[in-house]
């Protein structure tokens, strides 16, 4: 059984900076990391493989430097890694991205004799774009049932049994036959660290295979900027409005002052 895990390279900071002129993320001087939930996806893939056998295949679409996050997946224990890289893929929105990932998965399945039973695992969302759309769109591309926001997951026979928390109070158990796609939250597991041997193997004995638009027989109209149905009009960090006041004194004094201030501002 093939278990695909989709990985994105993201800037490793909690506060992103945006270039106001180009409307793009400032990446200079910022280290890149694996999107944290994608590590959870890889961990889940590896733990399923360890219990039930199979083959873990890591995929990423991005510029050549995204090879680094795939090397990390290999170091954690993935069997194969593919980097989808081509200038024609650049500027892709979530739809064009999931289309491209879908083509790659179809190609890998076809090249290995059209395996019918497989599982695709994505992190629910990336910490940069935060859309949570690629997983669901990829499921549509592949015609698979999808279970999103998964917090617990287990494989039984040819069924995947998952738990997700609904409206932060009810736990819903959803199962699906394979093939299927699931997107996971960080609660699903605690990703392993790559071991030293894993890191050595990932760099010295394994390869990250590159796939371009030609390899995927991708139609120009469906990939990259031209294949994108959405366009980012503007990205900005909301300006801080109003002033920030620190109240001091006893609780009574502070409450009194707060009430006075609110009255002054006609909020009370």
């Amino acid at each position: 059984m093939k278990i695909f895990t989709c990985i994105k390279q993201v800037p490793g900071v909690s506060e992103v900076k945006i270039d106001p002129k180009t409307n793009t993320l400032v990446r200079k001087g910022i280290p890149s990391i694996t999107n944290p939930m994608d590590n959870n996806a890889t961990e889940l893939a590896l733990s399923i493989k360890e219990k039930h056998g199979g083959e873990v295949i890591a995929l990423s679409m991005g510029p050549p430097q995204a090879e680094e996050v795939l090397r990390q997946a290999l170091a954690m224990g993935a069997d194969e890694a593919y980097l989808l890289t081509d200038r024609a893929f650049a500027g892709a929105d979530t739809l064009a991205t999931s289309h491209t990932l879908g083509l790659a998965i179809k190609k890998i399945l076809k090249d290995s004799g059209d395996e019918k039973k497989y599982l695709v695992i994505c992190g629910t969302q990336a910490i940069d774009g935060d859309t949570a759309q690629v997983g669901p769109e990829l499921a549509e591309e592949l015609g698979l049932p999808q279970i999103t926001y998964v917090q617990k997951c287990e494989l039984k026979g040819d069924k995947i049994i998952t738990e997700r928390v609904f409206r932060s109070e009810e736990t819903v158990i959803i199962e699906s036959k394979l093939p299927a796609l699931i997107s996971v939250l960080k609660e699903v597991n605690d990703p392993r660290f790559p071991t030293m041997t894993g890191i050595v193997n990932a760099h010295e004995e394994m390869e990250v295979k590159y796939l371009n638009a030609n390899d995927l027989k991708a139609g120009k109209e469906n990939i990259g900027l031209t294949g994108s149905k959405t366009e980012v009009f503007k990205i900005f960090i909301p300006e801080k409005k109003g002033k920030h006041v620190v109240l001091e004194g006893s609780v009574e004094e502070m409450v009194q002052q707060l009430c006075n201030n609110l009255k002054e501002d006609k909020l009370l």
Partner: protein
Amino acid sequence: MDFSLTEKQKMIRRVTREFAEKHIAPIAEESDQQSRLDPQVMEEMKKMGYFGTCIPKEYGGAGLHEDTISFCIITEEIGRIDASWSITTGVHASVCAYPIYKFGTEEQKQKFLIPLAKGEKLGVFALTEANAGSDAGGVETNAYLDGDEWVLNGSKIFATNGGIAETLLVVTKTGQKGKRKELTVFIVDTNTPGYSVGVREDKLGVRASNTSELVFQDVRIPKENVLGSVGSGFRIGLQILDYGRILMAAQCVGLGQAALEASIKYANERVQFGRPIGSFQGVQWKIADMGVAVECARLLTYQAAWMCDNGLEYGTMGSMAKLKASEAAMQATHDAVQIHGGYGLMKAYAVERYFRDAKMAEIYEGTSEIQRMVIAQKLLRRGY
């Protein structure tokens, strides 16, 4: 000249840093106070491959035997969090496991190296005695051949990992050639009758690491446990120490780095006279000097490692690295305590532990004075 690390080395640094911060940092203070290595961390470190870093994969190691820079990075990153752990893994791998890989027979590698590399057994290099340390030739622990076995008698002191190890490399006097003692290194399994652990030392620094006395009373060692050859102990011993010094230097780079980072954080946060103390020149100069010292130490350490990996004679550079790095760590931790003021004297702040740990490093694995002797002799001999 290219100073950039490879992608592999960068990943090793990032992963080891994350690992040490997650698993070692939360219990470092407690380990120091209880003089104890946490068994759970030990298990995690085995899984990561930190006990067999410099051993080839076919012998159960991580396969970094030709990448001493990576071994340094690992030791540095562990040392940045807790020097007790970096000395435990550093000594085990560099002066016990690595020499068996380098000088051992295939049988010795199969029997002793594989369990060491996997961390199933812990290793020791035992040279220092009550009357021999800096003067390695003063070794009095002796062995004589009796049939097919060597019979060992004597005792070693200050052995890092001594009380918890199962495989020892013991430097022993096996004869006399004129004025010179003939030394031999034996691989000793601690389950051999006649072997016992003496006093466990209560130390100033690296308190969690185990430092013990080892006692040998008619310990019978099979002939095939000689490392290298009979009489090669002095030569092998010095080579073992040369390699080990690079790793001790790396540990000090990590310790100095930790002191620097703690000082920067504190200098930016601590407000006196209405402004952060980092805005005062007195503190700024300390921070600058610490930064320079740690960076010098790192460059020398990586250079020694690079020379080792490229088959060049690295002994002197290793001594320079060990000297500079241990003194840089001492300077940096000393200044870190000073910057922290009263808080720096308290156990609640890690710089108190860094300071004690740094002092150890100016003494063990060759004191600063011995390093200066070695370096000076080399420079005076070669003339430039």
